């Protein structure tokens, strides 16, 4: 064993177990770099590029389609655009703002999506932060059992709650088909995961900080506003972005609770309607789809780090 290690060390010219970071440019360092580069064979890179191209083509084709004229969209493939380039924003203007009974009206639906998603991201985060603080830092009997219950609720599929919740909204509260109905539904469905994730974060805040505040005479409300919220801002941002995108991309909750009119329904619901009559809406759909994709893509490319973090944490939601 030791012999093998010695041999290896001689070969590597450094003790085994040391990370191969190449700092300055020495002969040894260069050799390391070369050996590292060998890891990525040209075949692997070629295969990766092929996969990346296949993965990108569908979206790219739709983007190209969206700037072609309606006749072109209907009669020729988007790839002919490279031979026969044309450029128009009419499709976007048409699906966003054209008025008329059969128009797509996406401008209004876009507003609906924003009006739904902003509160539906803020409400659950706020309520969940409070609950997470209580579970982490207020000692009370039954805290453990209650937290396990909240944790377990994550596994209940949305489908289990839809029918009775809709009955409550329409028969008891009379708010079915309004923005508050959609907000409340999203808030409830988002809570278990938000509480769980925020609890993970808030319970890791050093106890001395909170103890010190308590010694100074701060009560729970004061600790919550002066210590917990400022310290958890990064976590709140990650989870908030994720919840926002989840709501923005949601179709099921919208279908059940929004009532489906232009007054409340979000973009996804309108898109689903349009695609339901694919033949008639063919020339509108590329632009329409891209309007709904713009917000997630901006969030994705500008806040990718937060997005990935939120996604990794929230992968079991739904």
């Amino acid at each position: 064993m030791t012999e093998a290690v010695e041999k290896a060390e001689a070969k590597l010219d450094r003790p085994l177990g040391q990370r191969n970071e190449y700092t300055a440019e020495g002969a040894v360092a260069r050799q390391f770099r070369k050996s590292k580069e060998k890891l990525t064979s040209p075949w692997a890179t070629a295969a990766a590029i092929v996969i990346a191209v296949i993965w990108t083509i569908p979206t790219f084709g739709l983007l190209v389609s969206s700037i072609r004229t309606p006749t072109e969209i209907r009669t020729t493939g988007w790839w002919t655009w490279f031979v026969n380039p044309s450029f128009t924003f009419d499709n976007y203007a048409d699906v966003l703002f054209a008025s008329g009974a059969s128009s797509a009206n996406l401008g209004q639906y876009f507003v609906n999506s924003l009006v739904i998603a902003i509160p539906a991201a803020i409400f659950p985060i706020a309520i969940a932060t409070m609950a997470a603080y209580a579970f982490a830092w207020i000692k009370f009997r039954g805290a453990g059992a209650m937290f396990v219950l909240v944790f377990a609720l994550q596994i209940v599929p949305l489908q289990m709650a839809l029918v009775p919740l809709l009955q409550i909204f329409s028969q008891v509260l009379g708010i079915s088909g309004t923005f508050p109905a959609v907000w409340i539904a999203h808030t409830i469905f988002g809570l278990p995961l938000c509480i769980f994730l925020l609890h993970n974060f808030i319970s890791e805040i050093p106890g001395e900080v909170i103890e010190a505040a308590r010694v100074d005479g701060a009560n729970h409300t004061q600790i919550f506003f002066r210590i917990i919220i400022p310290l958890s801002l990064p976590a709140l941002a990650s989870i908030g972005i994720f919840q926002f995108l989840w709501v923005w991309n949601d179709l099921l909750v919208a279908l059940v609770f929004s009532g489906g009119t232009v007054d409340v329904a979000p973009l996804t619901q309108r898109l689903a309607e349009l695609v339901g009559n694919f033949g008639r809406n063919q020339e509108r759909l590329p632009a329409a789809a891209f309007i709904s994709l713009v917000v997630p893509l901006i969030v994705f490319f500008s806040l990718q780090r937060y997005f990935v973090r939120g996604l990794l944490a929230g992968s079991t939601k739904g």
Partner: protein
Amino acid sequence: MTAFWADLFDKFGVMVVGLVAFAAVVGIVLFLADRAPKKGRDFWQLLAFVSPAMILLAIGLIYPAIRTIYLSFTNRSGREWVGLTNYEWMFTQPEIITVLVNTFIWVALVPTLSTIFGLAYAIFIDKSHGEKILKSLVFMPMAISFVGAGIIWRFVYEYREQGFGEQIGILNQLIVWFGGEPQQFLQNSPWNTFFLIVVMVWIQTGFAMVLLSAAIKGVPVEIIEAARLDGANAWQQFLNVTLPGIRGTLVVVITTISIATLKVFDIVRAMTGGQFGTSVVANEMYTQAFNRGEIGQGSALAVILFVMVLPIVIYNVRVMRKQKEIR
């Protein structure tokens, strides 16, 4: 245009009112808790912090879930007890059996394929030039809505009968270029289910790739180097070093995608509406409960969905716990 702006102001008005009302309620609750009499203050504060969440969950999730279980034993209107009739219906109706079979096909194929593609891609791009960009390209579908993905793929699969103009879907165009006959990908059962599955794989591969890529980078360099010095080739290195090193993450990825797949609804809705024998449990539940008004049957399908998700979630949680202990 003016109508649009008026509409916008109205709706943002509603939103601002909603946000202010919410802030006011939370503010008042916390203010009262802050000012609660010294005696029993801890109790009142605890109540202020926990009860909003617990009340919402009790009304919006716990009670509905229990009621859905009850409704699954009732008839169409949800008023009359019918015992196991709805479950019997589910396992005897050929259409619903197709739905169940489809769901199993989905949950067998999507996690497997997504994980294989994601893992292969993560290994291919590991330490390569432009790793970040290559990652973004494959991960991007994860950010967009299932409905948007559905529309994107509707255009890929679009079909024109031979002799009735050019193909506008790239897949059929490729077939025609190679001298084949164009196909109605979304209508020819049972293969149409597989073409829907492709969409979900397209979305989930990015998720698998990001997690597995992080796991691969976590495998200690020394072990890989030692294996290489022992003369292991790339494949042996992967099989004997990398794979054991990422086993935990692999399980989490597969189970997570399985759960997401079981609940898949939007893709089927946007691409076929569940027609042509492509429906799955989550979609059929919606169709029965909300399109046909079959409360009992819809609820029974929701319960079945829950039963299918349950073991995977439990397994997932166990593995994640174990991983945390190791760390």
